[in-house]
């Protein structure tokens, strides 16, 4: 498991190569990348600022990955989440999951993203022509997390 919280951009290909380097037992790698959209709350967005809670963020992400590893037979997990100022089109978050078979890799990646949305302490502020506005949490995200309850 490897978790990074950083301002720098990331290279998906390089991260995937690092995850599978020297291994021939991995059958599936699923990759999710979140990007900054140019629309938010029905208005054009010119910039986004991502704030986080240093210390708790890394702890929360590690706990989410540990939970995924307890539920699925994962051979490797990589999570990168950026913070600071980000322009539309920029990469925000990367989740890679590796497993012998695709179903576990798909499900684990989705699980990690659903939990990350509601449990990792990040907050987005979107800037448009009329100023900045904090993004409201979405009920759909709570519902997405709830479907993994057991």
């Amino acid at each position: 498991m490897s978790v990074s919280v950083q301002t720098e951009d990331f290279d998906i290909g390089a991260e995937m190569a690092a995850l599978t380097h020297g291994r021939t037992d991995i059958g599936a790698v699923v990759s999710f990348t979140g990007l900054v959209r140019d629309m938010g709350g029905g208005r054009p967005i010119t910039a986004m600022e991502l704030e986080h809670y240093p210390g708790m963020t890394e702890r929360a992400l590690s706990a989410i990955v540990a939970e995924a590893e307890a539920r699925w037979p994962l051979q490797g997990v990589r999570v990168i989440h950026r913070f600071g100022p980000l322009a539309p089109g920029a990469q925000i978050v990367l989740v890679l999951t590796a497993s012998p078979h695709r179903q576990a890799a798909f499900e684990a990646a989705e699980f990690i993203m659903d939990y990350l949305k509601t449990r990792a302490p990040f907050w987005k502020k979107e800037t448009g022509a009329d100023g900045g506005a904090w993004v409201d949490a979405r009920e759909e995200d709570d519902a997405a997390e709830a479907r993994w309850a057991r």
Partner: protein
Amino acid sequence: MQVLYFAWVRERIGIPREEVETSAKTVMDLIEELRAREERYAAAFADLRALKVAVDQDVTDFDADITGAREIAFFPPMTGG
């Protein structure tokens, strides 16, 4: 203890963190103390349904015991990803 504020809570109160001397037993007691300080605190803590709290970096409830806690953080629901 250190009290931390994030996102619009930080903006409304005007500072990211502060040392607070308190004998509050629960998160709610601490909120009442802060609310009584100044209007900006009362404004930030006006609607608790819009707020979450973490005690020593674990999200918990407003009735949680904070005796001996080092770090209390207040923030809106998370919006990462």
